[in-house]
Each structure stands twice: as C-alpha cells, then as structure tokens.
C-alpha cells in the first residue's frame, strides 16, 4: 500500500468498525506496533521509513474507523510535515525524550503503570504484578530494555502476544484481563501526552490506544 492508497477522510466516515471487527492477529500487530512507538525514540531509519511509506504499519488498519482516523492522520502529519527526515527525527526525538524519559518533570507522561496508581511513584505494585504475568508466560523483558515490566511497551507486547496466541491453558493470563488492566491507567497516560506532547505524534497515538482499549473493554462487556 502506498501513501496514495490510504483511505481518505471522506470514505473513513462510512467505515466505523467495532473492536470485534479486527481479527486477533491484526489487533496483536497493532499492539505490537504501538509498543514500538512507546518503547523507544524513533531513529532516523524508523522515521525515514515512515515518511517513505506515508503510512503506519499494521496500525493503519484502524484508519478506516472514524474514531481512530483523525488521530492517526494527526500523528502521520507530524511525521510528514517536516521538510526533511532529519528534521522529523529531531522533532520526534525531542517529543519522546520530554514526554517519556523524565526530563520534563510534571510536564511529561511517564510510560509506567505505577506512575498512575497510588502516589505516582515508580516500581510499585504493578511492577510485581507484571513480572508475575510475564513469568506465567515464560517471558521476561528483553536484554537491553532496562525498563520495569510495567512499562507501556512491555504491557503492550504481552497484550499482543496474548491476543495473538489466545489462552494457552487454564492458568495462562487472559488477554482481556490485561486489556482491562491497561484500560484503567492508559487514559491518564494519554491525557498526560495530550497535555504535554510537543511533537504532536505521541499524543494522538496514545489517544488511539486509549480508545482501542476502551473499545475492547466495551466489546467484552457487550
């Protein structure tokens, strides 16, 4: 799919889809791609590829739904608007660092579940809970990824895996439970992004994720 084949704003309005409309593998890939954006700042090659494609990867599947389309369009515009790949890389990097790496103080959105429960400290109960969930799946955080297991990229990666694989046994963690868990704190994370994101890239992606989790939770309740 080239940039020219993207659904237009006009035709997306007619394509509202429910959470259940997305096959599990597609959803899993969407979670995986979002994990990629929130897990580390994009480097030049990442940005170059995004600009060359003019589209997201699996995430682009949501662009047909008007609940997601404006945010995805906004995020993509933030990547495409700069005059060069270099400039885009700097703008996105600046946004990532200020939002997620702690240098902005309150003018940021810590990408950790612990930060949104209790008093806002890091390494709290969610770290233990997520470590237990990972262990139950025979997983651990990847070497070189020094974040605690309640980092949004880890939770999304596990959600992707659970969504793709389905329940592997009676004691295996449930994708729906993890999705619900994330739905409890990701909206606050997304509000933080909306308030402080200077890149105009991460806030819409966080909004997409919050909507997706909420949609999934409602679909589950229906």
């Amino acid at each position: 799919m080239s940039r020219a084949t993207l659904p237009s704003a006009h035709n997306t309005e007619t394509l509202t889809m429910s959470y259940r409309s997305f096959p599990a593998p597609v959803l899993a890939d969407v979670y995986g791609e979002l994990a990629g954006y929130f897990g580390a700042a994009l480097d030049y090659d990442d940005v170059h590829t995004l600009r060359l494609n003019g589209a997201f990867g699996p995430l682009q599947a949501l662009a047909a739904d008007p609940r997601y389309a404006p945010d995805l369009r906004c995020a993509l515009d933030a990547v495409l608007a700069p005059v060069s790949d270099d400039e885009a890389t700097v703008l996105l990097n600046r946004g990532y660092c200020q939002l997620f790496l702690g240098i902005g103080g309150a003018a940021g959105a810590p990408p950790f579940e612990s930060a949104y429960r209790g008093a806002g400290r890091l390494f709290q109960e969610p770290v233990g809970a997520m470590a237990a969930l990972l262990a139950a799946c025979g997983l651990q955080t990847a070497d070189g990824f020094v974040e605690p297991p309640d980092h949004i990229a880890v939770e999304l990666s596990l959600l992707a895996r659970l969504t793709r694989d389905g329940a592997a046994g009676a004691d295996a963690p449930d994708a729906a439970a993890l999705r619900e868990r994330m739905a409890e704190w990701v909206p606050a994370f997304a509000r933080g992004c909306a308030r402080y994101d200077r890149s105009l890239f991460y806030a819409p992606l966080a909004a997409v994720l919050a909507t997706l989790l909420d949609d999934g939770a409602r679909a589950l309740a229906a």
Partner: protein
Amino acid sequence: MMELEKMRVSRRRFLQTASAAAALGAMSGLPFGWSAARAATGALPDGEYLQASHWGAFWAKIENGRFVSLRPWEKDPHPSPQLLGAWDQVYSPTRIRYPMVRRAWLEKGPGASPETRGAGDFVRVTWEQALDLVAGEIKRVQTDFGPWSIYTGTYGWGPIGRVGNPQTMLKRLMNLTGGSVVSSSNYSKAGIEAIMPYVVGSFDAEGPQTSHQTILDNTDLIVFWACDPLKNNQISAAIPDHGEYGWFEAMKKAGKAAVFIDPVRTEGCKILDAEWLPVRPHSDVALALGMAHTLLVENLHDEEFLANYTTGFEIFAQYLLGEKDGTPKTAEWASALCELPAETIRDLARRLTKGRSMLVSGWTPQRQQYGEQFPWAFVTLAAMVGQVGLPGGGFCQRYHLDNAGTPTANAPGLAGSLQIGKRKEIKEWPKEKGTTTIPCARVVDMLLHPGTTYEHNGSTHVYPDIKLCYWAGGNPFHHHQDRNRMVEAWAKIETFVVQDLQWTATARHADIVLPATSSVERNDIERVGVVSRKAIVAMKQLIDPVFEARNDYDIFVELARRLGVEPEFSEGKSELDRVREVYEDALRQATAKKIPMPDFDTFWNKTGVVEFEIPESAVRRTKYADFREDPVVDALPTASGRIEIYCKAIEKMGYDDCPPHPTWLEPVEWLGQRDRTFPLHVNSSHPQYRLHSQLNGTKVRELYAVNDREPCRINTADAAARGITTGDIVRVFNGRGQCLAGAVVTDDIRPGVIELQEGAWYDPAEGGKPGTLCKYGDPNVLTPDIPTSKLGQATSAHTCMAEVELYKGTAPAVTVFDTPARA
C-alpha cells in the same frame, strides 16, 4: 502498488522467553544495548535488611527484587519523618534514568547554544557514547587549555557512605589526568571556618563538644543563639544517632533555664518553655556588643580569665566604650539595632555571670555579610563571662549537627578508602592562569570574571578561565545565591557534566547527564554517629540499579579507562574490595585497642552491624578544659596561644570588611536600612524536612508543602497588612528575582521577617532565562551573591530583603517534581 518498506518499529521486541535470553536479546532491534548495570544483578532474597541514610538507619523490606517499604532501626531513639524519603527517592519519578546529552551540545559541540541550558531538550545516548563524550571533553580541555580550565569544585552532601563519595572520586580522577580547579570550605560555615582559626586556633565548630550530661549536671542557664538543635540534628553526614531529643527531654525534666535568641520561635524553645527573644536578623553582633558593654561597665567581666587566657581585650574594651569612634556600644545602642529592650539585654548579660552559663550558637549569623564578626563577638562574650573550659560553661558552636554533645563510644575510626591524591603535573600551571582552589561560594564570580584578582584570607588570587565544569552529587542550582546571576554565569561554560540520581535543577542545566545509583543499589559502609560512633552498618546492595543507573565508582573507573589511568585510579579494586578495606582498617584499630569486632565476612554476610560500648568515662566532657587547666602546656594553636580578641594577623591584612577585633558593621541589606522598598527580611534557614535540597523531590514534601509550593512563614501582622491568609499562594520578590510560595501565617516568627527555607528546588517558568519566576519557592532567586568579607569569602545568604504579595490569578503549575496523577 508499491511494496511498503518494512517497518523496523514493528519489529522491536521488548520481551523474550526466559530460557533464551541472550539469543533473542540480540535480535531485539532496540536502539540501546546491553546494560552493564542490569547485567550485574545484586538483588537479594526477600526479607528485611539493615541499611542507612543521611536521615537514619532503617530496615528495608525487599520483595521480588523491589524495595517495598522501610521501618526505622529499633535503636534509633527518635526516627525522623524524613526517613520516608530514603525509600521514596529510590523510585521517585525524578530519578535520572539514562545518560542524556543536551541536544544542541550533541549536535554542534561544546559551548553550543548555551541559552538552551535548562530548557529541557535532551537526547538519550548510550553509556558508551556518554562516557566517550565526557572523557573526550576532559582530554580536549586538558590539551587545548589546561587543568586551570576544568572546575571540579563540585560541592554538596551527595550520597552517604565511606566508599561511594563521587566528589572524592572525581578529584582523584582529575589529579591523575593533570588536575583541575577545586573549591575550599562550604556553604554552611565558611565564615566560622575563616575566623575561628585566628581566634581559638581551630574551626571549633566540629567534633565533640561539651557533653549533654555535663550541661545537665552543671549549667544554670543555657542560651541558644540562632540555634535549632531539634531541626538540623535530624540529618548527618554519617548516619544520625538522633540522641538530641533525649537531651532536650532531660533538660525539660530538670527545669533547665533556657533562652532562645532567634527571629523564629523554634520547637526546642517550645519544648523547654524557654524565653524567646525575637531579635532583629543581622543585629546579633550588636546584641553581643551590647551585652559585652554591660559586663564591662558593670565590672562583671572576668578580668582574671581575660588576662590569662586571651589577648587584645584592652583594645576591644576601648571599642566597646567608644573611645575611638565616639559610640559606646551600650545596651541602649544595641537595643536600637536589635529591637530588644535595653533592660533585657543588660539582664541577660548579668544572668550569664550569676551562675554557670553556656552560650550556644548556630551558623545563621555567620552566613551573612560580615559573617565573621558574630562568631568572634560570641566567643569574646563567652571569654568575658570567663567560664570557658569549666564544666557546663563557655560556648559551643555545634550542638545543632551530629549530636555533638553525645558521649563517644569506644570505637575505631572509619576512614574513607579513596584519596584524591596529588596532581600529576602533566602541564605546568603558570600563576597567571589562575588559582588552583577558589572559595566554593565564589564560583559565579569566577565564571563571570576570569583573569581578575580577588582577596582571600590574606592573599591575592586570580580567577581561572573555566571551560569545563563537572558536578557529582551536589546541586549548586539550589545552594548558590542569586540564581539569576548564576544562570547568566553558567552560560559561559562550554561543557557542564552532572552526575547524580535525580533531575535536580542543576541536572536540568547540564550538557551531559550521567545517572548514578542510590545507596540501596550499591555496596558501602558507614557508621552511626559522627561523634557517638555507636555502630558500623553494612550498607549492602539491596536491589538492582534502576533503569540505566550506574555506581559512581563504576562510572569513574570507566572514565579512567578511557583516559588511560584506570590502573592507578582503581588500583585493581572493586567497590566491594574498598568496602572490605575500610572495614578491615577499622578492625586493625579495634584489635589494637582490644575492641571486639567480627571479621569482615561475618559482618557483611551475617551480623550487618557492629555496635560499640560507651564507657562511663565518656559521658561527661568539657571542651577547652585542658586549656583552662594549663594555658601554657595546652595552649591554643593561635599565634598567641590564647583566645585572640584582637588579632594582629588580621590587622595586617587591612581588610575594611573584617577589622582586627569583633566589630559592628552595618550590612547592605537588613531591617534597619533606610530604603524600605523591600521591607521584609528573608530567613532562608536550613529546612525542617530536608537535607538541603535532598528529598524535596519525594513524598516527604507532602508533610510541608502549602498549595503545592514551598511554605513561606509570615507574621500575622505582616500577613494582615497584605491581605494574606494561610494557604494563599504568594509572590516573594526583590530586585534580584521572584518566586511563588505557599503562605503560613504564624506568630512563631517575628514581625518584619519571613521564612523561606533553603533547599527548595528551583522551578523556572522559563528555563535558562534570567529573571524568570520560580514557580515552587527557591529562596536563592532572592538572595545576594556577595561574600561575607575578603577574609572568608563565604556565602551571605541571610543578607536579604524582599516583599511579599498575594498572588492574583491562576498560578502556574509546579513542574519541577513529577506529579503524573494530575495528568
């Protein structure tokens, strides 16, 4: 249809199977590589472990590799509420997580766009990159300029522990690579440290003082002069023993008569139900002179003591009587300056001589312009009373820190492992390139005026031209005065490296930021009680380093490797080797003195603590008793061997701001000045719930913050005149700066004075912009950056006037602390 480029982002992997760590990790596609800190797992099995902090010893509860809670060590008689911060700071959102570099510096090199310092535009880099950049800068500046262009005067309390002091490590590294400019003294008591060696032959305000029990046994009247032992003793450079509360309880039980001379009614004053003399700030010298004059004219001074143990009293007496300047320093004269009734001044002077009296001072009156004068006047007053060296009499300048009146246990010393060593003279250091050591409080002067001369303690020096500044374990953007002048000066540095565990205002102004571990993430050793020496605690690493934090020692070893001096720097020793070395040195001393101590492995792996007995003979102690007993054999190490009330060495210096005997000099700013543009005196004393700026970024702040701001105490009358009530957000301002604060209206502070405690984190509305509003309440946006005098060149933080007004409109949010719950 074109085929899409493969999305690398989608291939990023944040998880791997637990059984195939290495193989899958290599395919993770992450931009950051294997972390050595992460590889070295130091987490302990679940359980409780004894650990230590500047706020006390504690049991840390570890669960699944996390530090989940703490409780005070059961042998701490009065745990501080600040102890909570020892846990909270480990997981504070303000932790520095990764090596970061200011974007403009990274892209354009040293000195690029200094105006963006403090604006928060950092790029994450790998440890390899960061270490290469720092080592490269050290090499560049050493080669292109010289050691006189590198400033490592890094100052601050930093982490606790005998091994992990990063400032020692930094200076050691720099000495091995050609040297650097360092600093002398400190921001706490540089005035005392400058003047006391001339007066009594030593700093005096350190080490064991007359013991608490001796006070209880002998003292009829104790006078606390700008001294608050129950506040500052909560902290210590070692592990505080918190014994001072017991002393106050005992004094209360004994009905000990006490007077507190202070613009603030302190907790100690309330506990003892003591007399409060709310002196006008900055007039302490005048008050002391007024009392001295009373003693002289009423013939209450101890002529025999003055004749046998002091020099120069006769010249000072002429000054008291106004024989040269025509102004007798009467109680009435003092009253007009200090706003205490003349009869109160006379009465207090008389009471000092009616029974055994102890004069106790804090350090506030010497942290102000002409700050050398008060300690000198204070000791002179005590000398006139004539009880120096008698049990329970005389003077003390350190009851407020390290519980210095406690008995000392029969324990070995606990020396540091690393030494800074001597400078390797790779380049000759020509005199015209500037001094090797500046007084620490003159750092901004140095940056603003390279090549100019300044006076210090009888000598003339040249300020060097600094290109590279490296700070480790300190926060000058809290402790230095006149923040806006400082921001301007910092723009002149080409490279600023900060190594710390939290995003302090200093770290936010850096070019390269290196994340260091906290005490629970590394191994160290420390003792309980600088003076009491009650115990030695094994500070074992309890958890893995958080994020990419590394131990200071490991950071410097890596830098030393890049600079080609690793073997000399580390001597082949690990951090734990050095802990063992410190302990075994103490063990050797103990063995020689027949003090029981287990071997290191037993201490480290089993007991975790060694406690020491306090002999009965240590309970009573009188400072200067030997001198009193025999002033010839045990003469003081002054020029005359006596207390010098008139000092010829200072006379020879000819300083107009430090005359040769205690003298009243009107400061540039104080309540007695004619100009009333800024009518309130700013008292920026040590904080109640922090160690300077440490813990301001933790939950402990909830104990005192007002409307999310630093509290500003203001007298009821001053508040009413401005329409201010408790809880209001106020703007405090003067000609140097402005900050917001949360008002606390109280009669525990005298009219005309506000209290805004130092250590509040600088939170500029516009980072890097001089004059900008500090949103949280840093008092050092208001204080002047002027020296005490040419003698001490110490800080004058307490020479400060300002105005307060109710802040109208919507106050900008505090952003220096991470409070994501509001997102």
